[in-house]
């Protein structure tokens, strides 16, 4: 059973502000979805613990592009900037 408190915790983790009314709706909707997907418990009983069906593809961390060549192109899309930086509010407060 998903409670309103659970939804508040998840919303905090996901950095999403929710109105009070939406918290209750979401609690019941997510409960219903989790109720639907519960069949996975049964379906997975005969499944191998691990499979090689999916794998990650990595590249070597080398040959970076020249520093700064895309900076202006990317910064121009930001809502707030200061020179060559993204501008954000202070993270640590004094009090």
């Amino acid at each position, binding site marked *: 059973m*998903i409670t309103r408190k*659970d*939804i508040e915790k*998840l*919303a905090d*983790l*996901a*950095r*999403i*502000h*929710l109105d009070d009314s*939406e918290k209750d709706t*979401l609690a019941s*909707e*997510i409960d*219903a*979805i*989790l109720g*639907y*997907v519960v*069949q*996975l*418990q049964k*379906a*997975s009983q*005969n*499944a*191998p*613990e691990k*499979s090689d*069906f*999916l794998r990650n*593809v*990595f*590249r070597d961390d080398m040959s970076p592009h020249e520093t700064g060549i*895309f900076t202006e*192109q*990317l910064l*121009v*899309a*930001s*809502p*707030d900037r200061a020179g060559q930086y*993204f501008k*954000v*509010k*202070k*993270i640590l*407060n004094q009090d």
Partner: protein
Amino acid sequence: MIDLSTLTIKKAHEALKKGDFTVWDLAESYLKNIETKNKDINAYLEVFADVMEQAEAVQRRFADGTAALLTGIPFAIKDNILIEGRRAGAASKILADYVASYDATVISKLRKEGVVFLGRVNMDEFAMGGSTENSAYGVTKNPHDLERVAGGSSGGSAAAVAMDGALVSLGSDTGGSIRQPASLCGVVGLKTTYGRVSRHGVMAMGSSLDQIGPIGKTVEDTEIVFNAILGKDRYDSTSQDAPAFSKHSGTFKVGVPFSFMNQGGIDKSVLDNFNETLEKLKAKGIEVIDTPMPNLEYSLSVYYVLMPAEVSSNMARFDGVKYGSLVKAKDLLEDYTLTRGQLLGKEVRRRIILGTYVLSAGYYDAYYHKANQVRALIADDFRKAFEKVDIVLTPTSPTPAFKIGEKSADPISMYLADIFTVTANLVGVPALSVPSGIALKEGKKLPLGIQLTAPHFREDMLFEFGKIVEDLKSTS
């Protein structure tokens, strides 16, 4: 006046080569059609102001002999695919002011062909939905019945082609988002093999599921576009070239998971049309084999755990700092929470919260891990099926186009619309939706579609068999 309703890429190309009409004439015909029809249908979010300049610029390729098959062909592009210097918003308020910083790889490839970009088309916000009702810019209506949805999430891409507002379009498909709207609008839609087409420059939703693909009026049109956009790309590490395979020969063997089809929830008109299609195929000498795929019934459950999990990670990048809009608040944390709370829509918020839940400590094993285990079982079902058959057939959508608002209050009933399509995304195989007939509902003729699924990298078999299905329709 050019007859757009019967126009195909090859016909247009021949006419442009012969000089029957110019790229300019062709683009103008589509623009006129968009002007008349888009106010009712709402397929386009923006028609580009420079369409005629684009047409002018590529016309010379017909004079100097450098014209390719796609030169001058008018395209509609889904709003989550980046075209440098143009707005791209994924139909979300959080990207209301975003201008793309670079071209998606598929766009650079089309640019080289010399296509004309008519505009960007509507979608469910960040491709999350099956009806285009989740767009921040209003629903896209079905050209066959304005009271009904065009499907989604690539509803604008499908409706644009169906209303002759573009010859072809690009969409993206995470759980059926190309095939389902194509089916509901009576056009052809291809979900490509995972990795066959670069996703560089498409806004990510579920990274182990997403694929870009074409929508067109004919199988051949989607084939031509597919051939222009495929290929390994250094900017998408999941992309790859197809391994060598020998061309399919002889008659097709078709598998149908009948037990999965007869579990209820499928509209009678859809089942009847599907069975009729099977009979016609049999009459052509095609063998139809009952192919049990026992784990298909778990596909939706797997999908609705894995997809939100991937969504919650991918959507973390929208924080009001790097791009898009920002709601200014008292501190950085509140900047994040208000920007995301106010500018992301309800369905997007719901999926992020659900994804955060299934990935959280204590639940990861119960949901995410189990979903991955069952995903491998479903993949195994397909592997076994393709040992016996060439193509797996199901309907594309369990119902014809539904009424606007009919499912929007109940997320689960909306999710059920994906029942036949999510499997291809979970397994990574290619799938094609081809029109297969019509259903009469309240006096309206609503298109139905049939879905063909082939082994990894075997789009060639989809095209070959898709043309057979297309011919059934025209001879009936």
